[in-house]
């Protein structure tokens, strides 16, 4: 991973102008790097909005079509179109939307008439954030711990158990895992204890309601991180400087913590970016399985009822979260691995 060019652009073809502006110190280079990455988010988000917006308007039918039921009269549809700004030409709608988004105004929800998308997102956000943060707190220590232990005791029983777990975790879909949890800890435990104890299978609360959703959400990323940590630790274990560290008689604790772990964590940091993407995807499914009123679930509801402003806003919001996570990871990477070139 040495000298990896990270960031938005490849290293080649630097313009002479850029060389004139070449920063003198690493600190300035870092500032420039961060600034460039933040700026790069602007076109990305623009295209995310453009693509999603276009798709929404490509969809056949209008949002006022009622499946099977009585259709709205033409004059009502016209009024609705005026109210939601759908009577304007599409490019005007798009520009207006962009303008509003920069003011954090995501428009009105079709599904819950009279409520703004922003209000809906704000009320759903705490659930998703709580789940995500807790899952992240499980993923990082569990994933890294499993991976390191498996690598240090390669081909031992612990290694096989850890890798078996991570293969299982990566291959069994999280909604199946969620269902299994519901069957075992919700239904069976309820029956066995005669209804005295079971984990709650729906709803949300800052108590045992959290156990099953958080574990379900954390499973796949944990497995992913564990596999990666094991591979990178095995790689480090074979390095000369590790052999030297053992040879000069350092304690196991010192070798593992200072020489092995510190270096094997470098690739793991880059994996934390995709972890956020996993959490976003996972939240959609886990919130549906456990009926948690978070953003993921409201997104699914918006999709099934074709609530376009809601779909658009959620896509933008999640893309921003993933983009910021990737940005933070890239910047962290520069601090952790001094070999990285800033491009």
């Amino acid at each position, binding site marked *: 991973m040495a000298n990896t060019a990270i960031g938005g652009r*490849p290293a080649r073809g630097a313009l002479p102008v850029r060389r004139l502006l070449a920063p003198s110190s690493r600190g300035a280079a870092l500032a420039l790097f961060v600034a460039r990455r933040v700026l790069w988010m602007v076109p990305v988000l623009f295209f995310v909005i453009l693509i999603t917006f276009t798709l929404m308007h490509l*969809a056949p039918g209008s949002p006022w079509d009622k499946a099977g039921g009585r259709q709205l009269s033409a004059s009502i549809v016209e009024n609705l179109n005026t109210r939601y700004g759908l009577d304007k030409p599409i490019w005007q709608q798009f520009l207006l939307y962009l303008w509003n988004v920069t003011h954090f105004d995501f428009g009105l929800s079709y599904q819950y008439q009279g409520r703004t998308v922003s209000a809906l997102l704000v009320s759903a956000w705490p659930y998703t954030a709580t789940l995500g943060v807790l899952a992240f707190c499980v993923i990082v220590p569990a994933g890294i711990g499993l991976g390191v232990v498996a690598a240090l005791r390669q081909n031992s029983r612990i290694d096989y158990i850890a890798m078996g777990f991570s293969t299982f975790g990566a291959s069994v879909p999280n909604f199946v895992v969620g*269902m299994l949890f519901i069957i075992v800890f919700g239904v069976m435990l309820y029956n066995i204890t005669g209804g005295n104890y079971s984990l709650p299978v729906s709803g949300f609360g800052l108590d045992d309601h959290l156990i099953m959703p958080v574990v379900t959400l954390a499973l796949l990323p944990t497995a992913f991180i564990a596999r990666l940590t094991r591979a990178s630790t095995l790689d480090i274990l074979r390095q000369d400087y590790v052999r030297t560290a053992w040879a000069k008689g350092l304690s196991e604790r010192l070798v593992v913590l200072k020489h092995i772990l510190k270096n094997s964590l470098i690739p793991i940091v880059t994996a934390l970016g995709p972890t956020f993407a996993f959490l976003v*995807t996972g939240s959609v499914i886990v919130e549906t399985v456990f009926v948690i009123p978070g953003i993921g679930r409201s*997104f699914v509801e918006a999709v099934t009822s074709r609530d376009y402003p809601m*779909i658009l806003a959620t896509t933008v919001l999640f893309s921003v979260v993933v983009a910021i996570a990737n940005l933070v990871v890239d910047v962290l990477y520069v601090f952790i691995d001094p070999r990285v070139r800033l491009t």
Partner: protein
Amino acid sequence: MALPIPSAPLVQQQDWDVPEQVGLWTDVWRRFRRNRLAVAGAVIVVILVLDAVLAGLLVQIGLIQDPIKQHVELSATGPSAAHLLGTDELGRDTLSRLMFGARISLTIGILVQGIYVLIGGTIGLVAGYAGGRVDNLLMRFTDIWFAFPDLLFVLVLVSVFSPSLLSIFVAIGIVNWVGLARLVRGQVLSIKEKEFVESARAVGSSHFKIVLRHLVPNALGPIIVTLTFGIPAAIFLEAALSYIGVGIQPPTPSWGVMIQDGYQAIYAAPSQVLFPGIAIAITMLSFSFIGDGLRDALDPRMRR
């Protein structure tokens, strides 16, 4: 035309062991066979494919039940002689629905890889081979595509084009080709600097020929591995979509739909969630094991 080469007398006795000459794919197959999990995965996949192909015929012979026919009097029963894996809440035979569900999962899982190759393969190849501005442009495009969280984008696409087997298949393909594009580009970038490509260029091979004869075959290993791992990912996405209710629509039996249906009667018959869940898990595991096996078998560092 060939110059007469003075041939040395054939040496009949050798005092050293010449390693047996085997081609790449023979060698790969040999090493793949040694990986027991991978072979088990391959066997299961073969069985699943047979099941998917023959399911319709088996119904006609009367060996398994019609997956859509309802027997309301047999709502959510456990396993019995007539229904080996029981029935769902509408009294449909679970075994038969599972077997038909394999059709959907395998079709999506495998065909979607074709779209990845079509979009991702082409973009990666062109970007890597052309380099320069084309490369820059295509990779920026790929970066933008990568910014979409995959399940969200698939959900959006499917909701726009109304759920059907075709729209799910296209949506997953359109969203997830990015990984392959990056891989192919990386492969092409490293291979095109190799001496044999340079010599091919020196003797005047066309770009077309260089790409087809030299770049593609040499990049094939990692691509196959990536595609194999892409299959369980696509199967997962289809099942998740169908589970959420925006994928395959009832009464067509898909494993995701079956889990959703089973959830309605989870207290009465938890097995109706369990069986399709196990089916998805086994299928995804099998493909992952095959992928692991292929990766190790194709890794030149592990060659004898």
